[in-house]
Structures are given as structure tokens and as C-alpha cells.
């Protein structure tokens, strides 16, 4: 048990290199490269069908790659002995035998990995499935309970890497907060987490690094700040005692303003809005960067892969 130094040769725990997967003429994953560092949570973000799941399935050897490779700790997944002890995997919480109890699912995993059955109770407690629930059949589990069970299964072998596909799917808000805390703590202990989602807000709170994928291609990657900076356009939400006065002041400077709820949406940075307000002696009661920045970026980067066209007014 030791802390992993972040800058040695292990600095990339998961390494995806030139990964391509084609089905006939369809390219599901197109020359994808990225790395995941120990001690970080990496969010793998993209609309449905963008290639997230295929990439993760290739990582653990369930789908063969057409070209390229994935290594975990320098090894191909199939070369990791007793891989459950090193890499925790949750690809589909529903991929469990409906007729088994939650406890039995974990017992099978623990026995396969050669762990004592006491580990099953530890994991059930960790994911807050009580004794009674653990003896129910998975058929009678809600999606949220299945996710908890799947996370418990992934953590059984005390792995140093976690690969989770849509783990927040079906969790209630309290469950999502719980999982966020769990994964943050896991990463702080030096673990490597790769989790996918099609929901931006799920990922942006928890992920240190984000990888945006659309139509099988990586369209952007980096931390939240650099992604927003890369997006260029900043916007501000502001509410003043005198909204009309503020809007007039901003328009004088050639800055676009539109009404948004109680206040205004201004297409510039917060500091510019504050300056105009100060110049005109207008009292502000709310001033903040528009949260939609990253979302706009996400939607625009993946726009050509969306099933629903992003309309002009969607961002207002």
C-alpha cells in the first residue's frame, strides 16, 4: 500500500493508441488516442452511439479492435492475471442474471477472484445495499440498485483502475452525489477512474479530465477550464435593479444582450458587465458566468453526430 508517484513511468495508467473499430463500412471508433492518469477521474463524454461503450469494451477485451491498442499499466487486458484484482469493470449494470440475488452475484465474483466471502459484505455495506436487499433477486432491483451492485462488483477486488460505463445512469440525485464522493475518494487514494456519460453535468463536477467524443472521433480533451477557454465565447448572466439601463449601456459598447428570466444574458465576460455597471452606477444583484459555456461547446462539437439538430434558440 503506497501512494503512486504521479510523474514516473506509470503516469499514464490507461493508454489508448490509434484505436479503430469498424463494422463493415461503419466506423464506430476512429483513430482514438488518450491517456488516463492515476489519481484522476477522467470523464468520457459523448452523445449516445458516439463510440464510448465500444472503446471501453475493447479495453477489457470483449470486442476486438480493428487497429490500435489499449494498455492498462503497460499490459493488454488479457495479459493481466486475475484481472478483477487490478481493474474494476462495470460496462452494463443490467448484464446480470435476473434470477440471482445481489449477494450471489458478488459471491460469484469474489470466489472467481479468490477473495473471502467477507469481502461481499464489505462491498454491500459500501454501496448501501442492506441485508434484505442483498437477498432479493436482481430481477426485482431498480436500475439504481443495479448500478450500486455493479459498482460493488467493480470494487470487489480492490482494483487500482476503474472502468465504468454510464455508472450514474438510473441513480437518484442522492445516489449521484454518493457516487461522486466515492470516486473522488478513490482517485485521491491514487486510483485511476475512467467513466463515461452522455450527460455533461454529471461529468463536469466530478471529472478532472474530460474527453469529448462524437461519431467515433475525439473532438476535444482537457480539463474543464481549458475546454471552456478553447471554446472562446464567454457569456454572462446578470440581474440588476435597473436591467434596462444596464442593457442600454452594454449595447452602447456593441455587446449583444438578450433577456433571460429575471435578468439578462450578455455575450461577454463577467468583468466587462461589472465594469459597465460600475461606470453607470447600476446596482447588480446577481452576476455569474453562463454555465452553458461547456454545454454549448459539447453540443457544437458533437452537433453533427446528434440525432436531434441543435436549434439556434436552444442556448438562450
Amino acid at each position: 500500500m503506497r501512494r503512486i508517484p504521479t510523474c514516473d513511468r506509470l503516469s499514464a495508467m490507461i493508454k489508448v493508441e490509434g484505436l479503430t473499430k469498424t463494422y463493415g463500412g461503419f466506423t464506430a471508433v476512429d483513430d482514438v488516442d488518450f491517456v488516463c492518469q492515476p489519481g484522476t477521474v477522467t470523464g468520457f463524454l459523448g452523445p449516445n452511439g458516439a463510440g464510448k461503450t465500444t472503446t471501453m469494451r475493447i479495453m477489457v477485451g470483449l470486442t476486438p479492435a480493428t487497429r490500435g491498442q489499449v494498455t492498462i499499466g503497460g499490459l493488454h487486458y488479457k495479459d493481466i492475471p486475475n484481472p478483477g484484482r487490478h481493474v474494476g469493470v462495470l460496462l452494463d449494470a443490467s448484464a446480470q442474471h435476473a434470477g440471482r440475488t445481489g449477494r450471489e452475484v458478488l459471491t460469484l465474483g469474489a470466489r472467481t477472484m479468490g477473495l473471502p466471502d467477507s469481502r461481499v459484505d464489505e462491498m454491500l455495506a459500501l454501496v448501501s445495499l442492506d441485508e434484505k436487499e442483498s437477498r432479493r433477486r436482481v430481477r426485482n432491483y431498480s436500475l439504481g440498485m443495479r448500478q450500486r451492485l455493479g459498482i460493488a462488483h467493480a470494487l470487489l477486488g480492490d482494483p487500482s483502475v476503474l472502468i465504468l460505463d454510464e455508472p450514474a445512469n438510473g441513480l437518484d440525485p442522492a445516489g449521484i452525489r454518493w457516487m461522486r464522493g466515492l470516486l473522488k475518494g478513490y482517485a485521491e487514494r491514487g486510483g485511476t477512474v475512467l467513466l463515461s456519460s452522455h450527460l455533461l453535468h454529471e461529468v463536469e463536477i466530478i471529472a478532472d479530465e474530460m474527453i469529448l467524443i462524437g461519431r467515433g472521433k475525439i473532438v476535444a480533451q482537457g480539463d474543464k477550464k481549458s475546454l471552456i477557454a478553447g471554446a472562446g465565447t464567454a457569456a454572462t448572466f446578470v440581474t440588476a435593479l435597473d436591467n434596462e439601463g444596464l442593457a442600454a449601456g452594454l449595447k452602447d459598447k456593441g455587446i449583444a444582450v438578450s433577456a433571460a428570466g429575471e435578468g439578462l444574458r450578455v455575450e461577454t465576460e463577467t468583468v466587462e458587465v461589472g465594469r459597465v455597471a460600475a461606470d453607470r452606477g447600476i446596482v447588480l444583484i446577481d452576476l455569474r458566468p453562463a454555465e452553458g459555456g461547456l454545454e454549448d461547446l459539447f453540443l457544437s462539437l458533437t452537433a453533427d453526430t446528434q440525432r436531434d439538430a441543435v436549434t439556434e434558440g436552444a442556448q438562450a
Partner: protein
Amino acid sequence: MTSQTLGQPALPALDVSGTSAIPFSRLVRVELRKMADTRAGRWLLISIAAVTALVLVIQLWVVVAQDLVVNFTDFMIAMNTPMGILLPVLGIMSITSEWSQRTAMVSFSLEPSRMRLVAAKFVSTLLIALAAVVVGLVLAVVANLLYGALTGNTVVWGLTAVRVLSYFLLHVFGMATGFAFGMLFLNTAAGIVVYFVYSFVLPGLFQLGASLLGWFADLQPWIDFNAAQNPLVQGDASGSDWAHLAVSGLLWLVLPLVVGTWRVLRAEVK
């Protein structure tokens, strides 16, 4: 609990030097557990014993009521029917339940060597088939003893090593053919339907073909695995019977096993 598990200072790096591969015996034990830990699996195992017992009870009843003279072999042959139907289903389901319930995703991520996992499944299914045959033999012994007690007739055993071996072979073949069909189709319903067509419809077609076409009559013993197993049922296989068994078995057991294994090794696990 949460703080205890998460409070550990740091996770180990990915250092596999201290980890050994999963021993094969452990895989077999887990696969055996999987066959009995669901209602479907447990009831299939229970029904193999229960239906066999039921068949023997009915046979005993008829024998006693009509005052027939039978021996141990008759009881053994009687339980071929339930075993011959249910053991192949066991073989099919040991593979297809992983696919229909999608647990193969979990199994293959814990043991990426699919060959080892398939082998572990085969061995565990084989062990259950052997246990089922032993239970069947014990039930037949009980039936024969009851027959003697109820009718007062002499109890005839006539049990030879070849007969017992034939008996085990017969049911191992049945189970293994089911297992191969399961891998071939990776779908419970398709596997069972095709197995029953192979097992109940095909022999009739082969018979028909043999009676209509002269050249087919010469070919039929070499390609009809069901017919080739009949000497096993009777427990009196001769030299040419074994040759027929080997050649037709190559076609209906070994070939599907090879193609099925190839399919499982290559299949994308969804």
C-alpha cells in the same frame, strides 16, 4: 464501513508480479455454483432426478400391475428417456444462459481467456452429467430391489463393466452434444429446438432415406450419430459399432464443438 474501506491510505499501483492466474479448479467450482444458484438451474437439476424417479415409479407400477418379468437392464433403459432429454438441455443452458442473461460480459472480464472459461464450463457440466447418471443408476437399483420385493420374482442384475461404461458414454455424449449446440447457437430456444430436431426428427429422416435409397443405406450408419448410439443403450456395442460411433460422432459432436468453440472465442460479447 464506507470510511473503513475508503480510509485505506493508498491503492497499489498496477503491479501484477504478485498476482497469479485464476486456478482452473476455481473456475470449475464457480461454474458448478452457477448451475445451481438460480431457480431455473436448480429446478433443472431437481427435475432430472425427479423425472427419472417418476419414470421408474410408473414402470414399476405397470410391471407389478401386469405381472411382467423384467431385469435391471430394463430399468436402466427406461431412464434413458428423461436423462436423454434433460442432460442435453443442461449442456445447452450452461452456455446459453450466460448469453441470454448477458453475464458473459462479466465472466469474460474476470477471466479473459475464453478458452479456459469454456473448458471450465465443459468440465463442470460433465461432472453434473456424471453425478446425474450415478443418481440414475442408484434409482434403478432401488427400483429393481422394489420390483423383487413387490412381485416376489427373482431379481436379475446382469450388470457388466461394458454396460455401465456404455451408459456413462451415452449420457456424456448427450450432454456434450447439447453443449456444442449451445455454443453454436448461443441462444437457449434455438439450441433446444435444433437439438430436438436432430435428436427426434433426423433419425426418422435417416431411416426413410436409407429405406428408399440404396447408396444412402450404406452411408447412414456412418453419419447417424443417434442410431450409432443405440448399441450403447443396449450395452452390446461391437467393433463396427464403435467405428460408426467414432465417425458419426466426429460429424455431430466434435465438429459442432470445434465450430461452437471458435464462435465463442471470436464472438463479440454484448
